[in-house]
Each structure stands twice: as C-alpha cells, then as structure tokens.
C-alpha cells in the first residue's frame, strides 16, 4: 500500500506521454505571423534541428517561459526556434513579441487550434524538439525553465546536431 502511495505521489498526471516520440512531425502548411501570405511547412526545415514552441499572448505561463526562450535563442545559434501562435489574435501576438522580445526565427498562426490537435497539444506552452530527419525526439509540457534548458535542451540539441541527416 505504502509503495503504491509513494509511486502515486511522485507521478505527474499533467505530463501525458506523447505518442509522437521518434515519429515524423505532423505536417501542416501555416501562414506566418509576420507575413500571412507566406506559408511554412515542417518540410521546409528538413536537415535542421528545430524547436517547435506553442505559445499565445493570452497564456500566462508563456510569459514566464519567454525570457528563457529569448536567452536560449541567443545562446544556441544552431537550433531554429519556430513558434506556433496558438488560438491567438495576430495583433495581440505581434504586440506581445514587440514588448517582450522575439526568440522565434519564425512564428506561424494556428487560429483555430487545428495544428495543435494534429500535434496532440493540450496545454500551452508546449515545446517539441525535431531532429534533422524530421522526427520528434522530445516533448516538453508546460513552461521550459532555466534548469530544463541546461539539463535537457542543450545536451539534447548538441546530440541531435551531431547526428547525420
């Protein structure tokens, strides 16, 4: 009984395992936030290691995460950071980036949350790491902390950079 209790107390029910690990990133063709007439698809990023960060201007914990992403963007030149602006007003989203800084190489819009469903997103923020072959290698639910960057993201990114295409 005590063993079950101890196990249960240490589980995090908020962390739902993603069925996408080591599977190809779901495809989409989405309008860019800065220039809606241009589209971006995961195929355009083949051969690169990239982060896919789901964010929104209405999301409170994204604010906490934002400074850390800004720092990561400065530090890690090698990884492309793509933002998925999830169920947001484009004008709010642009203001947000203007005020808080823009860590994203590019952000695409998902106003109806359809790309979110395809990626199994159930909360914002979420961050995926995609390798050069276009496979999802890691998913982080909730805001990325400075510790997560040091302990998880940086080691993983350099490992993935070293892999061949």
């Amino acid at each position, binding site marked *: 009984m005590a063993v079950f209790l101890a196990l249960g107390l240490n589980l995090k*029910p908020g962390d*739902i*395992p*993603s*069925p*996408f690990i080591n599977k190809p990133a*779901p495809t989409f063709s989405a309008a860019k936030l800065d220039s809606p007439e241009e589209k971006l698809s995961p195929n355009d990023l083949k051969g690169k290691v990239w982060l896919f960060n789901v964010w929104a201007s209405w999301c409170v914990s994204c604010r906490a995460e934002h400074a850390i992403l800004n720092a990561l963007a400065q530090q890690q030149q090698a990884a492309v950071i793509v933002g998925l602006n999830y*169920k947001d007003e484009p004008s709010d989203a642009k203001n947000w980036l203007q005020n808080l800084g823009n860590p994203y190489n590019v952000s695409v819009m998902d106003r*109806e*949350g*359809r790309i*979110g*469903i*395809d*990626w*199994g997103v*159930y*909360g914002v923020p979420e961050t995926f790491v995609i390798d050069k072959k276009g496979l999802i290698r890691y998913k982080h639910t909730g805001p990325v902390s400075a510790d997560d960057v040091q302990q998880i993201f940086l080691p993983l990114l350099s490992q993935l950079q070293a892999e061949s295409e």
Partner: protein
Amino acid sequence: MKRLLVLFLFTLSTFCFAVDYRQLPTPEMQETYESLITELRCLVCQNQTIADSNAELADDLRRQVSEMLQQGKSKEDIVRFMTDRYGDFVLYKPPFKTKTGLLWLGPAAFLLIGLIVIFFYIRRKQSAAKTIFSAEKERKIRSLLLEKSGQNKKGDTF
C-alpha cells in the same frame, strides 16, 4: 421559502449539462457523436470527458469529432485519430495492455488475495476449535448433552 430555495438550487444543476449543442445531420451520426464525446477525455481537465468540459480544447475536439463524422469517418477512425495524437490517455476507458494490466487486474487480484486470507483464517479457526477438548472430554460432553436432551422430551430446546 425554504422549499423555493431548494427548488431553485435544483434548477441550477441542470445548467451544468448544457455544455454541448451540436446537432448532426442524421440521428445515427448524432448517436455516434454523443457516445464518442462521452468516451474521450478532456486533456486539460483530465477528470472530465469532452462532453462534460467547457474547456476550449474540449470544444475543439468536439468540433473535430463532428467534422470527421460528417466526412463519413467511422467511430474507430475517430478513436484512432485521437489516440494517434494524444495517446491512450485520451480514452476515458483505457484499453487492456501490459501497461494497464495492474489497473484492470488489480481489483480482481486484491479480491482473490482477500478470499485466500479469509479461507485460511476460517480453516485455522475451525481446526483450533476442534482441538480445544481432548477426545475423552468430548465424549463426556456429548453424553451430558444427550442426557440433557433426554430430559427435554422434544429435544430441540437447548
């Protein structure tokens, strides 16, 4: 007054069921839709199905279910679509797998353990009761009892 208040409180509870309002073109689709949304979990609130939850994600997932049904997708297609994206956790009733074995067999195993414990407990008690008196003493008791029942003519009122 008190009665009125109670009645008022009861009517409040009915609003809780008014989360969903989608109407699908055919009764069969509507039926599948309604059964599906009570089987899929809202991943934000976790302990609610997407039929019960008014979280935005639940609404998006209901939209997804209704659109897929109208595209002619079957129930199995939709369940697969959801588990491909959200994993088995999206199912309110988890499938039987090695990972969920403990969940499904746990209660039965505990019942079995309980029954075994009770079985041995009773057997020990019985054998303990049997050896309280020696064979000689038991004969004595029996003869005394017989004597007693002989006095009560009907023999059934100890």
